[in-house]
């Protein structure tokens, strides 16, 4: 942008965004008004440019963020669709090839249809055991044999609430450019944000890919479906590449959406609104119902909410913190991040120590 003192034509003014804003919205941080009044010559030009702007209004309706997100999702859908491998064009154009392909396709689909119908799924089901045997990275396995959810904190400060009768395998520390964990059963994941290292949850035939969000995966070996429910952020669920003939390869999910992978049919069903789906709603965990949006709330109450959500105990100096109130949004944060944010907001060298399910807050009161 050239210096406005050298403006000689209407065009110079019309293309100046701050000038447009001044005319349209009377926003004048750069003092157009004073500047205009400095010379009559200038005033003439400015006035004419003003008329132009008034005569050139562009009326348009902005598209809402909801509609935009919906369109984005549709676009991801089309991308997945168009990336399906297609036969090489030249061969495809040959008539003999097309007829042969049609016959083959018909034969195969008939076989596939009967195979699926009669429940032969031996080649397509993938079990937790097979998955962890393939991973060479020396995994830690945690099994929850109790009757309460169990908290697991991973090396990247992500947290997982593992439900009873469920197992999670994960490396002691995540190496390389990805974070992979394996689930059998049900877990609620809050993944710490790291755009450079996607986080993958392998569960039966599905793979859920995220960068940092919260979501729940339900994948019991003996149940017909795998379900992924999203609370915050964006999640991509796809079928494991080993499941080659799955119909839908991947689904993009936004908050309050879910995907159900029907294992027998090898296809995804998308649930656009969790709250409308009774079977899913019935299984909601306390942590998903609690709000972690706090507005001027005593910190003791915030700790109590966290205790309920993660089924842990938090010890804190009650007397020293009795007058501390916080306003903060912790919905999208894994447990260690929640605690860190609270400690930092309290200030005064407040910190926390974590021993399994027991958390100790060390504090001298808040600022």
């Amino acid at each position: 942008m050239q210096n406005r003192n050298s403006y000689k034509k209407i065009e110079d003014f019309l293309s100046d965004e701050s000038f447009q804003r001044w005319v349209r919205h009377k926003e004048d941080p750069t003092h157009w008004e004073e500047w205009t009044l400095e010379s009559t010559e200038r005033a003439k030009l400015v006035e004419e440019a003003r008329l132009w702007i008034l005569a050139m209004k562009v009326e348009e309706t902005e598209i809402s963020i909801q509609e935009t997100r919906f369109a984005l999702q549709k676009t991801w859908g089309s991308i997945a669709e168009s990336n399906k491998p297609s036969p090489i064009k030249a061969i495809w154009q040959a008539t003999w090839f097309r007829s042969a392909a049609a016959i083959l396709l018909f034969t195969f689909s008939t076989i596939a249809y009967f195979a699926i119908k009669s429940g032969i799924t031996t080649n397509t089901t993938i079990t937790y055991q097979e998955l962890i045997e393939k991973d060479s990275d020396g995994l830690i396995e945690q099994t929850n044999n109790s009757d309460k959810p169990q908290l697991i904190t991973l090396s990247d400060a992500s947290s997982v609430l593992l439900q009873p009768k469920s197992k999670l395998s994960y490396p002691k520390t995540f190496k390389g450019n990805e974070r992979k964990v394996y689930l059998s059963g049900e877990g609620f994941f809050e993944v710490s944000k790291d755009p450079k290292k996607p986080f993958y949850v392998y569960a039966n035939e599905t793979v859920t890919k995220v960068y940092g969000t919260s979501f729940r995966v339900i994948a019991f070996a003996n149940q017909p479906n795998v379900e992924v429910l999203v609370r915050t952020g964006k999640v991509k669920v796809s079928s494991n590449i080993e499941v080659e003939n799955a119909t839908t390869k991947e689904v993009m999910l936004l908050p309050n959406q879910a995907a159900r992978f029907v294992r027998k049919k090898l296809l995804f069903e998308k649930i656009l609104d969790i709250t409308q789906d009774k079977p899913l709603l019935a299984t909601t965990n306390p942590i998903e119902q609690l709000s972690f949006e706090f507005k001027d709330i005593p910190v003791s109450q915030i700790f109590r909410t966290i205790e309920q959500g993660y089924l842990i105990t938090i010890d804190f100096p009650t007397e020293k913190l009795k007058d501390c109130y916080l306003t903060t949004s912790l919905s999208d944060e894994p447990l260690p991040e929640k605690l860190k944010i609270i400690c930092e907001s309290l200030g005064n060298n407040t910190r926390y120590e974590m021993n399994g399910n027991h958390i100790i807050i060390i504090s001298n009161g808040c600022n």
Partner: protein
Amino acid sequence: MNNLRTNTEKLSDSILWSQLRVGDEEAFSLLFERYYSPLVNYGKTLMSEGDIVKDCVQDVFVDIWTYRSKLNEAIAVKAYLLSSVRKRIARHHEREHIFSKVKDVDSLEFLFDFSIEDRLIADEIMATKVGHLNRLINDLPARQKEALYLRYHQGLPVEQVAEVLNMNYQSTKNLLHRAILQLRKDFPIPILTLFMELSLNY
């Protein structure tokens, strides 16, 4: 709120573009969210069927992702997107009109009419003047109007307007200049008196 999202909100187009080229889905989504609405609005100036315009805009993004590795690094993202939407709509027209007459990108007609900023009009004299100028602008040839729209509404520099309209720099510059020159001849204003009236309103 997703922090990644809020942090990247401020990232420039060119940074997102280069991340997109190496397969970053988040960068793609952010660019989509940033430009979907303006692109649909631009598309509607070239074609009245809103739903088809939306499909065209989405198709542009599908292609961008599909051919991301072949995309040019050094481009002006906004101009590239506007021009892709324009081509896409032209292609749609072509298909529609294949049996009647063939349209190409250059004959795509800008259908949009500028309106008047009523709430800022102080009095009748001004209303008459602005109304008159508005009519003159809307009577300009479609191509000149589109150039004005891209230059002053979308805020593209002249060379990018040229790119979107598929013209060379000098002719675009002339086109824009002619539009304004022409109207100034048709539209002599007793500027001084008008200015004094207006300055009272501030």
